[in-house]
């Protein structure tokens, strides 16, 4: 067999291995071009800064607070084990756990209700309603909450009128009100997706096999909506762990959480290396949580 000229590969057969390989490579490149804008953007403004943060976490702090890269050490990482950091981390952790639990408790029945509406149109309207808060900025919405919870706000006035509560602003309940408000949609949406694709004949089979309504829910509906529960919990837990705006504006920044502690390091304390190491540590924890999610059988978020 003669060696075929590449351009005239059709001399003996229309396609030969060489041409097929080239076609495949062209295809791969075409795919990359589609992804290129996002790829470049993320590399420049996400991956690169992340690497910078990571690198700075090994720098030492100069006398004026300037990070010195040439005198690198792991002091900032060892500082993570100081009691103060641990206290703040534990506090943030519990705040995130509690908020996740609250969102799940409030969000599950709601998602279930939406997902079980007979008409697709009704379900769509309700889902859009869940997303309406995103039409305005998170910060603006949090300030709106501040007005509601302040001394002359409606919620405080109602509480004082009924004698149930006083001024809520700058209290722990205010922080949770704000967090629940902010993150509830992130819980409802994946739960909705999971419940909506549930095979209801399984629930019917359960009822047919002597399960009461409650038993069928506990034994069938709940375990089968687990992917949604896990996805929603991660989507709420991760941002709650680093929550900064809500505790700051509604909680009055009275208690230090990881979020504002990091801000302090980069700002007032002028300790970039330490701020970087805390940020890095949180990232690693979140990564671990996410990996756990995918390992435990979760699917698309």
């Amino acid at each position, binding site marked *: 067999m003669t060696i075929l000229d590449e351009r005239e590969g059709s001399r003996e057969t229309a396609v030969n291995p060489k041409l097929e390989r080239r076609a495949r490579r062209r295809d791969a490149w075409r795919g990359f071009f589609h992804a290129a804008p996002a790829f470049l953007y993320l590399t420049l403004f996400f991956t690169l800064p992340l690497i910078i943060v990571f690198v700075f976490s090994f720098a030492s702090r100069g006398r004026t607070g300037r990070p010195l890269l040439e005198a690198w050490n792991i002091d900032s990482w060892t500082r993570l084990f100081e009691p103060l950091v641990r206290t703040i981390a534990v506090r943030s952790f519990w705040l995130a756990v509690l908020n996740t639990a609250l969102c799940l408790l409030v969000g599950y029945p709601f998602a279930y209700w939406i997902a079980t509406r007979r008409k697709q149109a009704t379900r769509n309207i309700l889902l859009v309603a869940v997303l309406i808060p995103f039409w305005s900025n998170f910060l603006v919405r949090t300030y709106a909450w501040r007005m509601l919870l302040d001394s002359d706000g409606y919620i405080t006035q109602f509480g004082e009128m009924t004698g149930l509560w006083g001024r809520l602003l700058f209290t722990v309940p205010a922080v949770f009100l704000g967090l629940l408000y902010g993150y509830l949609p992130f819980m409802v949406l994946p739960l909705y997706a999971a419940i909506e694709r549930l*095979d209801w004949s399984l629930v019917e089979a359960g009822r*047919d096999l002597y399960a*009461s309504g409650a038993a069928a829910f506990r034994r069938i509906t709940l375990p089968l909506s687990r992917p949604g529960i896990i996805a929603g919990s991660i989507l709420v837990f991760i941002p709650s762990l680093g929550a900064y705006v809500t505790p700051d504006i509604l909680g009055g920044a009275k208690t230090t959480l990881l979020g504002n502690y990091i801000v302090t390091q980069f700002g007032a304390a002028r300790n970039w290396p330490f701020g970087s190491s805390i940020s890095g540590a949180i990232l690693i924890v979140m990564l671990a949580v996410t990996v756990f999610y995918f390992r435990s059988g979760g699917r698309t978020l």
Partner: protein
Amino acid sequence: MDGQAAVTLTGVTKKFGEEVTAVDDVDLEIRDGEFFSLLGPSGCGKTTTLRMIAGLEFPTDGSVQIFGEEMGLRPPNKRPVNTVFQSYALFPHMNVEQNVGFGLRMQKVEPSEIARRVAEAIDLVRLSGMEKRAPNALSGGQQQRVALARALVNRPKVLLLDEPLGALDLKLRQTMQLELKDIQHEVGITFVYVTHDQEEALTMSDRIAVMNEGKLAQVGMPEEIYGSPVSLFVAGFVGDMFFLPGEVAEAGAVRLAGGQIVRAKTSSSPGTAVTLTLRPEMIHLYASSSELPPDRNTLDGTIARKIFYGDSMFYEVDVGVVGSFDVRVENAPSMRRWEVGDSVVIDFHPESATALAE
């Protein structure tokens, strides 16, 4: 079969909204120990009827009784029946054993008793050794058996089956048909079987209810349904059938479109427009009517087409305005062969032809 009623439906009607009447005033008595089929095309209300017996759907009107007990609005978990669902509805988060034991666990049966009965049920459907498998690691036929075991393990008074073999391929379906019938014999409980497959209904059932547009079209034993359909719908839905338009000439005789008068079973009065129904297997071909005894019905025709099928020959016989007949003749050495253009005589026994009015 002691004749006691296992399930009694009285005036059962189910409406979905204002417009849709899925089941329309159905009266039905299913006897104890019977293999009873609800047969009909999709949307005829057979599945809805089954679901009302199960309690998965409540009737809009009427009464459902199980062994004389009024079910009313009783939820499915409080009814002495179990269902084998169309798509099996096996719990994906439980293995075979857990699936089968689910009903007993819900009934708070002793764990040792559960273990014993689950093993028994798994053995009954020949799935021993698969106890720890997940449902999605099983083949369609095996899943079907798990669904069956999961229902039977509870020893229901009535087992409801909603097109349980619909998802299986032909070969497996035929095997499972026999197996289901054997299992029913073995456990001796009443089976109510929903299917759109008339052959399946005929081969398995003690009695069949043919449904159409929410109503009962005919209830009877397979032989009756097949041999003496009461309406054109039943005649057309169950088995293959030739339909020949005509009118009643006199009692027991029908005039066909070509003027030929043939004898047939009919209950209509002379002059009524009827359709003569005739089973293909009741038709035979001869060279001339002189070869036949005088009491037979004959029609003259010509061979229009022939196709070789291996085990049989297929002839299309043209009988002018009356229509054309597809006749299959088994290939035996003694069998006469015809060629296209040959004149033939179609023969059928008067008893095998039924004239039905619209």
